[in-house]
């Protein structure tokens, strides 16, 4: 695979020649007040790859609270309520770092709160879809101490949505959150997902972006006590004209935590554009940190573009490990030859390679129905691209 558009920028971890970010990651503005946030501007690193015209008005209009329109289907270990800002968990995991998210915060005065107690063997489903074009939603997913379970957040259909997802992972608990973006072609979606991890907790966070005109998911994970582990996984498949952007941020604020970030994407068609930005900050206090992030992109046709930027900021040398890898490459013709030389036609050979490439993420979801649906969606994407 050939390296493409990789721009490592960091303090204390320079590869030389890369651009240095304008600020250290934790200095970015966090505010619930939309007027404090700058308008979408390509000169701003946050909006370097997107312009306002693609945002479906989420950055300019007054939004409508759609939190009460989300449908929950969950086993008994989960309870769900609509809460307002007086709830102690409201705003605990993170505050808006950009204008659409601040707009969502202002509009969504109520949040849908899902609380997990005990061990749930079946996942909870939250369906979001067919919304108004000016929608805002706020979700809070909280696992209590020692709780275990999975939450699937499923976005489909029409609608433009600016969304806030707070994920509060209680001490000693293990939570899996899967966020699926499988919108119709014209939908626009921003989703700021803030995770806050307690002592010895584990979060597996999976982002799957397939459908939508513009999808921008920004998962943040912040460690608040030692012994916690976060796994941020992502899979995306962009077709002609689609923009799928993922910006992850892991804040190693305390000692002895572990993070793994793995995002993989396939692209096909003219104007298909994906962006992955992986920020990791290891603060001075975060001794014993173990982190690794990886992004791989497979370009199936000409005219598609994958941007991939790992940023690692390290403020202490007393760590277990810190690394990143990023590569974007074309389809490997030697793989194609090998499979065809075994009688497999070109179309099936391409399918096999792409599915194999994305399998690494799919296999880790751990929910059979979702894995099956994803395999079917990927088949559909490949058929649509005539590959």
């Amino acid at each position, binding site marked *: 695979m050939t390296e493409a558009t990789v721009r490592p920028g960091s303090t204390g971890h320079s590869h030389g020649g890369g651009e240095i970010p304008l600020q250290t990651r934790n200095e970015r503005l966090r505010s619930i007040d939309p007027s404090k946030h700058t308008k979408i501007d390509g000169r701003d690193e946050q909006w370097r790859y997107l312009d306002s015209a693609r945002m479906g008005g989420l950055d300019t209009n007054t939004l409508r609270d759609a939190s009460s329109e989300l449908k929950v289907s969950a086993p008994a270990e989960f309870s769900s309520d609509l809460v307002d800002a007086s709830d102690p968990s409201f705003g605990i995991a993170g505050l808006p770092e950009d204008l659409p998210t601040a707009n969502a915060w202002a509009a969504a005065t109520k949040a849908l709160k899902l609380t997990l107690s005990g061990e749930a063997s079946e996942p909870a489903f939250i369906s979001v879809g067919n919304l108004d074009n000016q929608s805002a939603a706020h979700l809070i997913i909280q696992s209590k101490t020692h709780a275990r379970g999975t939450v699937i957040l499923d976005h489909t259909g029409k609608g433009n949505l600016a969304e806030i997802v707070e994920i509060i992972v209680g001490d000693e608990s293990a939570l899996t959150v899967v966020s699926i973006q499988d919108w119709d072609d014209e939908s626009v979606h921003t989703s700021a997902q803030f995770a806050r991890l307690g002592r010895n907790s584990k979060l597996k966070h999976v982002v799957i972006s397939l459908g939508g005109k513009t999808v921008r998911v920004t998962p943040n994970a912040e460690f608040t006590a030692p012994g916690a582990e976060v796994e941020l996984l992502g899979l995306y498949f962009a077709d002609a004209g689609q923009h799928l952007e993922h910006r992850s941020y892991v804040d190693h604020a305390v000692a002895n935590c572990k993070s793994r970030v793995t995002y993989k994407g396939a692209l096909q068609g003219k104007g298909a554009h994906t962006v992955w930005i992986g920020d990791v900050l290891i603060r001075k206090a975060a001794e014993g940190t173990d982190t690794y992030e990886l992004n791989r992109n497979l370009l199936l046709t000409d005219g598609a573009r994958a941007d991939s930027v790992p940023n690692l900021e390290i403020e202490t040398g007393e760590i277990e490990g810190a690394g990143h890898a990023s590569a974007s490459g074309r389809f490997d013709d030697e*793989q194609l030859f090998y499979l065809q*030389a*075994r009688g497999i036609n070109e179309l099936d050979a391409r399918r*096999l390679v792409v*599915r194999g*490439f994305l399998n690494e993420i799919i296999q880790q979801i751990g929910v059979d129905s979702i894995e099956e649906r994803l395999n079917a969606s990927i088949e559909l994407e490949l058929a649509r691209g005539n590959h």
Partner: protein
Amino acid sequence: MATLQVKNLHVTVETEQGSIEILKGVDLTIRSGESHAIMGPNGSGKSTLAYTIAGHPKYTVTEGEITLDGENVLEMSVDERARAGLFLAMQYPVEIPGVSVSNFLRTAKTAITGEAPAIRTWINEVREAMTNLKMDAGFTERNVNEGFSGGEKKRHEILQLELLKPKFAILDETDSGLDVDALRVVSEGVNRIKDANGFGLLLITHYTRILNYIKPDFVHVFVAGKIAEQGGPELAERLEAEGYDRYLKV
């Protein structure tokens, strides 16, 4: 009885210095059940012949023909050639991340025969072939060629040869990178499969070592893109004693 015929084959490859002719008029006829060894020094074009027969896009045929039972092989795509009964065991098989050996073998078998094999029979067939090649049962769960040792890659190629049952098998330096034990297992596998299936064999090698295990009916010495000499098994013995210098000094 099937026949693979190569006539006056000229092949070029594109390089930064322009197009270079590698094969300069090769003639070769292989029939079912025959074993042919192509021997020659590095760079003589042996592997180019193998990959051209298989249809690798890197090579351009500028003159001559390849036919399989009279059918024009050069007009077929790579997968059509495989389905017509040609098999190339590669010297450097590529990794296919995320695709398991079992999935790959089943997909290939389905493509070759035109229908999915009956599950139970197929599993037994794969298991038996793997036992014959002294391969661990867990092998099928691994991803194709990913992290395989040199010996595992070659066994995996021969496993495919057994399962896909081609009319003609081309083994491109299958002996390279194998220790003596692995060489014996792989060679015995080729002999056993050939006895069972009766395919025509084209064995490409630099060294005579593998010919101690797989006895060729015909030996062709390849030099500078052409067959410089051909004969029976005795020619291999002579090469073992004298090397290729005799041809290179010309």
